[in-house]
């Protein structure tokens, strides 16, 4: 490596003509190229992929696993070329179905995915001693392979030196050095990609057995006279704090609280704006179209449905931006390290903690964030308990009932009974999640734990394009898969609540007419029908309708109760009063007795009442089996806990 701007290119064996044939007009078109991009998880592979394909990649799923499939077109002179970005892996010997994807794709063993004809392997210049172990495995496949040594600028900055030509000679394959996030060297790689048929292959494949392969790597590096890089000063300094037993734990706590708070606070204005926009569009439709079925369907069914999908976007975008930023910088690995012991006790691992914490804002992005957990079983358990984390949609429900029924008394200094109740509900959800995870891990999704080995990469400032690309991928995946299901459920719910259309008795106010229609709708009849089943919990048919509606989304119960009690939704005080005073016409007793309220709150702590969560679960687990299981076990838990709560509180208050 002589000059700064020229990472250099090394070539062993014959340097075949690359451009000449392709440009001759008389020559037949060359077959399309299919490259596989391989490399370790922190080797700059994704940045290189973006540099080659320019964010024009298509994202899909491999059959049967949750790993993403990313392919993109690359501009190679004179030929069609596609790059298949294979999941980052340390080794071709798989430990799970997800890891097996790489070796299966390479063998052409995965249905519908053509094996790549030539391979591009990335390795971080600062950790070649380990990276070349993987390269050695890849070379045994016998396909044309070239090595891209990434982050060569960092190697120089840390006082290391690497002769790429010698490395190419020693390995027997072409080697290119790049600085991915600045695009340096990529043009040389593209030139190389024009003619993979001309790439040299090693005379003897590297050894298969790990110990022998390590010896081979050592001899290669010796021959190349690699000057190893010194410490990364920034990483050393920062880790002194971050990994310190006390300071590190405190810092971790602060980062997590901040994370959670930002998602709550920063997403709120955008979500309010979206809410207002939805209301405005709904209103415009109702004014523009003649009153009737079509107007209602469009305004309350379609627009509200689309709105309930779009409303998640601010939280998802914000969460994933923070998540990917922390991950790409390298902090996430440290966070997982700090909290791993606790997580290990319940059968999960450090990275699952971040996903669960994100679920405190909303389970939808939290469940998507479980992708950072490599073990499929641990990821599944994390997904199954994420709904127990008290999400922000529960807040309007808690707020209504706590304000209506919990006395506003001071308990200790500034802490009031109402605030403590809210805190108690939050903690109940969180602790149950941990216990449920431990039980599920033992009873339902048991199995060998993947060895927990986590690399701590040096801290790096990620290129903005990388983070944007990752966030865009997550957001568009959500819209595509979960969005359609959420919209469908909203329309079905609208239907159940609106039909059959019963005209109100003469002289009724608009609010009373709404209540009448609701009572005689399909949903209302179902509410009456399930009343016997929920009576042991102290619930009546009105609560039944509310619960039914809230199966789509928790906060819907507030609007539904408002309709039932014939109050305007934006007049919460009178809804509060209405439910305080409501009495059962037959027995004369209060509908919302203390026991009922307690049971209802407990029900909301546990039950999975969110079509969006089910939709995302389906997307992340590739089947309906697990969302159905989650719904079932949480419903059983909710019913049981509610029942017990009702009985206990009832015994104490009568």
């Amino acid at each position: 490596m002589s000059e700064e701007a020229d990472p250099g290119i090394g070539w062993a064996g014959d340097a075949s003509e690359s451009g000449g044939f392709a440009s001759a007009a008389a020559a037949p078109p060359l077959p399309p190229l299919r490259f596989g991009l391989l490399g370790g998880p922190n080797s700059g592979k994704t940045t290189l992929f973006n540099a080659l394909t320019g964010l024009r990649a298509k994202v899909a799923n491999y059959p049967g696993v949750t790993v993403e499939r990313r392919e993109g077109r690359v501009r190679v002179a004179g030929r069609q070329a596609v790059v298949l970005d294979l999941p980052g892996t340390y080794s071709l010997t798989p430990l799970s179905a997800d890891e097996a994807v790489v070796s299966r794709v390479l063998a052409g063993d995965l249905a519908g995915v053509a094996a790549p004809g030539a391979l591009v392997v990335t390795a971080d210049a600062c950790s070649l001693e380990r990276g070349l172990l993987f390269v050695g495995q890849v070379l045994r496949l016998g396909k044309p392979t070239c090595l891209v040594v990434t982050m060569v600028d960092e190697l120089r900055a840390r006082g290391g030196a690497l002769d790429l030509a010698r490395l190419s000679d020693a390995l027997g394959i072409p080697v290119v050095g790049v600085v991915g996030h600045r695009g340096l060297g990529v043009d040389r790689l593209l030139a190389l990609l024009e003619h993979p048929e001309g790439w040299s292959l090693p005379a003897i494949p590297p050894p298969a057995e790990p110990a022998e392969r390590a010896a081979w790597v050592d001899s290669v590096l010796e021959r190349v006279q690699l000057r190893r890089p010194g410490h990364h000063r920034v990483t050393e300094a920062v880790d002194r704090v971050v990994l310190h037993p006390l300071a590190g734990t405190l810092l971790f706590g602060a980062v997590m609280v901040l994370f959670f708070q930002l998602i709550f606070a920063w997403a709120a204005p955008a979500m309010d704006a979206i809410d207002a926009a939805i209301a405005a569009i709904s209103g415009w439709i109702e004014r523009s179209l003649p009153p009737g079925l079509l107007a209602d369907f469009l305004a309350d069914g379609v627009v509200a449905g689309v709105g309930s999908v779009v409303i998640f976007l601010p939280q998802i975008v914000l969460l994933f931006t923070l998540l990917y930023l922390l991950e790409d910088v390298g902090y996430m690995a440290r966070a997982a390290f700090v909290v791993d012991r606790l997580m290990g006790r319940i059968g999960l691992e450090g990275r699952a903690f971040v996903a669960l914490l994100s679920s405190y804002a909303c389970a939808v992005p939290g469940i998507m964030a479980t992708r950072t957990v490599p073990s499929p079983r641990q990821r599944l358990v994390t997904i199954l308990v994420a709904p127990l984390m008290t999400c922000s949609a529960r807040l309007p429900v808690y707020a209504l009932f706590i304000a209506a029924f919990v006395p506003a008394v001071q308990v200790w200094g500034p802490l009031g009974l109402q605030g403590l109740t809210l805190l108690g509900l939050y903690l109940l959800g969180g602790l149950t999640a941990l216990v449920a995870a431990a039980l599920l891990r033992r009873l339902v999704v048991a199995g060998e734990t993947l060895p927990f080995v986590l690399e701590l990469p040096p801290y790096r400032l990620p290129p903005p394009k990388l983070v944007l690309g990752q966030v865009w991928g997550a957001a568009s995946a959500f819209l595509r898969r979960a969005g359609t299901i959420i919209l469908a459920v909203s329309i079905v719910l609208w239907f159940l609540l609106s039909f059959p259309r019963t005209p109100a008795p003469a002289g009724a106010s608009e609010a009373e007419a709404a209540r009448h229609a609701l009572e005689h709708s399909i949903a209302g009849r179902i509410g009456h029908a399930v009343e016997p089943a929920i009576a042991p919990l102290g619930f009546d048919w009105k609560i039944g309708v509310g619960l039914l509606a809230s199966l789509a989304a928790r906060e819907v119960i507030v609007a539904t109760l408002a309709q039932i009690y014939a109050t305007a939704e934006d007049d919460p005080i009178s809804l509060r009063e209405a439910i305080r005073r409501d009495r059962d016409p037959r027995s004369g007793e209060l509908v919302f007795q203390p026991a009922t309220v307690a049971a209802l709150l407990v029900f909301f702590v546990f039950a999975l009442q969110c079509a969006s969560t089910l939709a995302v679960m389906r997307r992340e687990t590739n089947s309906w089996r697990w969302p159905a299981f989650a719904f079932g076990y949480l419903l059983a838990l909710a019913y049981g806990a509610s029942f017990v709560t009702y009985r206990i509180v009832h015994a104490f208050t009568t």
Partner: protein
Amino acid sequence: MATTLPASAEPPEPAPVSTEETRPLSELPVGAHALIVRVDAAADPGGRLEELGFLPGTRVQLLRRAPLGDPAVYALRGTRFCVRRAEARAVQVRALPGEAGETAP
């Protein structure tokens, strides 16, 4: 000459470093350098540690432990890894004397 140490929950007091005995990687004192002697295949399912470079003849250093002692950060082959005690037990090492002050990159 292998010495079996009792499997205890807490790390024992770091014994005076001897170049003759082997001990599990999980029981190195913080900052110690060691040479890997062998990896117990039964305790390393799938051979993941070996694939990552935890191989006989490789130098490894224990950099620090997490709060509560588990997992720990090791430096080897120019990379830093967190490994849990359960997996680190599979690796038998021989402590290397006199370089406790230096940190591997």
